[in-house]
């Protein structure tokens, strides 16, 4: 979607989110979504806004969109404007980890304060319905036999889809730097390449291709989640002998150098939000999977993800 429409759609979504009762809590939050409307981060920010105000975890919540460069424009701006601020949050996720590395961004996630991990969605590995590969084992055997001619389609270079393709290639016993990954502007265009049979396999968020999987136009071979998910027939990579897991996680961060008390208060407000029935309901409606982790656990998780993503991007030549 162009820049143009994204921001406008943001304005539209604001109308939907604006209907929420006032609450007792004193917290007046501003959440930065480092992307335009329509994407996952914007949706996460606006969902948080809705539920925090409904449950009274915050008195008022404003969402600001700062799109650009895989979230790194928003991150850089946030790191400066939210320094020590007790009322500022930033939404981020695994794509930002990759974008920081590939764009050589001056500010990284170590510069902001992790507050909580919120959601984690599975990616899905699919093949066209006429593909000779019936199972994941067929696909990994093909990768091992001829990595160059196993052509993948997915989202932008260095994103979660690309990283998963590299990890599966590695686990199949081939050189990840040889992965033949064709990047498209989004799940939509990659979908056309899949349906046209121009590529071997594709990766995207499960929700994006759900319609084609259910109609039988695409065959889902595996999901990237560590455990099976209710309502999704495809089994995890891990359960099928490919030791790879990758979760498209999203979380929230506060600015640099905030006091321990502020950090605790923000963490408590988020915890109250995600433990509410309203949040669980919203997750279901959006098709998201709960992946909550509190501040300390999230901090360690971000560090390990950073290392893992860095190593993978290095192996495919996208980062130094």
């Amino acid at each position, binding site marked *: 979607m162009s820049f143009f*429409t994204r921001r406008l*759609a943001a304005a539209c979504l604001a109308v939907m989110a604006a209907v929420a009762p006032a609450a007792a809590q004193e917290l007046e939050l501003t959440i930065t979504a480092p992307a335009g409307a329509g994407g996952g981060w914007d949706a996460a920010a606006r969902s948080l806004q809705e539920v925090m105000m409904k449950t009274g975890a915050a008195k008022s919540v404003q969402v600001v969109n700062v799109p650009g460069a895989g979230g790194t424009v928003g991150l850089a701006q946030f790191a400066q404007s939210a320094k020590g601020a007790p009322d500022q949050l930033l939404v981020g996720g695994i794509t930002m980890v990759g974008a920081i590395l590939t764009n050589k961004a001056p500010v990284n996630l170590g510069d902001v304060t992790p507050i909580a991990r919120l959601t984690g969605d599975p990616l899905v590995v699919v093949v066209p319905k006429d593909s000779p590969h019936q199972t994941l084992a067929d696909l990994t055997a093909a990768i091992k036999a001829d990595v160059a001619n196993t052509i993948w389609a997915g989202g932008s270079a260095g994103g979660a889809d690309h990283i998963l393709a590299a990890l599966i290639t590695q686990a199949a016993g081939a050189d990840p730097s040889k992965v033949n990954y064709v990047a498209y502007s989004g799940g939509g265009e990659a979908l*056309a390449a899949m349906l046209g049979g121009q590529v071997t396999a594709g990766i995207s968020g499960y929700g994006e291709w759900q319609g084609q999987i259910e109609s039988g136009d695409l065959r889902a071979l595996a999901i990237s989640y560590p455990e099976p998910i209710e309502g999704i027939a495809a089994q995890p990579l891990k359960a099928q002998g490919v030791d790879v897991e990758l979760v498209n996680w999203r979380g929230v961060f506060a600015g640099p150098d905030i006091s321990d008390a502020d950090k605790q208060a923000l963490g408590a407000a988020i915890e109250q939000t995600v433990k509410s029935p309203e949040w669980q309901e919203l997750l279901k409606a959006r098709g998201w999977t709960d992946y909550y982790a509190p501040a300390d656990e999230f901090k360690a998780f971000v560090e390990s993800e950073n290392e893992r993503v860095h190593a993978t991007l290095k192996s495919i030549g996208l980062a130094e």
Partner: protein
Amino acid sequence: MDAFIQLLNGFSIAIAPMNLAFAAIGVLLGTAVGVLPGIGPALTVALLLPATFKLDPGGSLIMFAGIYYGGMYGGSTTAILLNTPGEAASVVTALEGNQMARKGRGGPALATAAIGSFVAALIATIGLAFLAPILVKLAVKFGPWDYFGLMLIAFVTVSATFGSSPLRGLTSLGIGLWLGLIGIDQLTGQTRLAFGVPNLFDGIEVTTLAVGLFAIGEALHVASRHMYAPEKPIPIKGSIWMTRADWARSWKPWLRGAAFGFPIGALPAGGAEIPTFLSYTTERKLAKHPEEFGHGAIEGVAGPEAANNASAAGSLVPLLTLGLPTSATAAVMLAGFQQYNIQPGPLLFVQHADLVWGLIASLFIANVMLLVLNLPMVGLWVQLLKIPLPWLYAGILVFATMGTIAANPSVVELLLLSGFGLLGFLMRRYDYPVAPVIVGLILGPMADSQLRRALQMSLGDPMVLLQHPGSAAMIAIAVIALVAPFVFKGLARFRQDED
């Protein structure tokens, strides 16, 4: 005939008084906002999306259909009258349309645009209703090599917009190609020419370039000449309506435009711009008076406008059948569906048959309403040119910059807009054509990524472009179109020498 019965069923839904009213409101709103300079259909639909929130899904989608088609109609008005296209797909319309308006023929230009849009949208909507399932199967077969072939044809045809000097035309195109390099490369993640400015990482926005070059560039140019040669647009000279000759010259371009627009619009990466380029070139080649092109040839308005609107209907094919938005406007439409938890895709026609057919029927109704609304409006729009020049251009600049601010209120974006305005002014001053810059920015990155995707899939073997019959045929057409004029010229000279 199943589709036919379904469509009748759709009409029975759309014809309900409430739904008719929604369609009428949508058409009015879409036209009103779409007609503002610098505000194209995508922005129009995005702005008016919230207005539909409170309705039920059926009524809302019907209003949507009205807004969508209304915005498409509105976009051409400012392109013709004020040389200020609100979107890239109207750039070609401005070439001849504004020349006509300057000669006092703004009325016929608007009329041929409106009727052409009606005819093309009608044909394309019929295509959408009956051919969508077949077309989409063909469209997904269109591989990167085929897209590259299509781009080559488009590149060759651009020369039609070059004006008098090939060197100047190619220079304009080169500037566009250069601007297209800026930003993060989609395929590898490599940054090109961004010089570390994060605001440039996502590339140059086509709308910013179009508004800068046309609206601001034009204002600067007219202001700089105002003192020496006050150039006042002529509101009306001769008939405000199309003459018999106008009709005779328009109907074929309408049909040809629709034939370009609908199938290319239905391609997952086709877009609305390429059919307008192709249509313009074709009309120029086929016209009885090609020398009129560049000075207000009505074929050059009729064809591209029809192509533009047919592609808008065409882009609904992948949107409804695959859930795949192929234009900014379609992307906003997708958001509109999703607000009701309706996911367009292969199951949409099965799961929400009433909605889909109601929507398609509403497109027909909105189209008729637009024609009825727009033809009488022609007289009113032409009056716009009676506004005193200082206020007219001041107003254009306010609305044009507002479009950019609304999309992205960053100072960098405004500076780019001003810079493009200065570029547009200098190019006009030294007689460089402006349209090829926009063509370069649109086609350059598309050709680059599609060619590299093709080479990636063939592991670097360039023969892939010739091995697929579709791309081989298109590359052959492009080469012939490029070489033929020289050959003919050479032959003619040869014969002369013989004589």
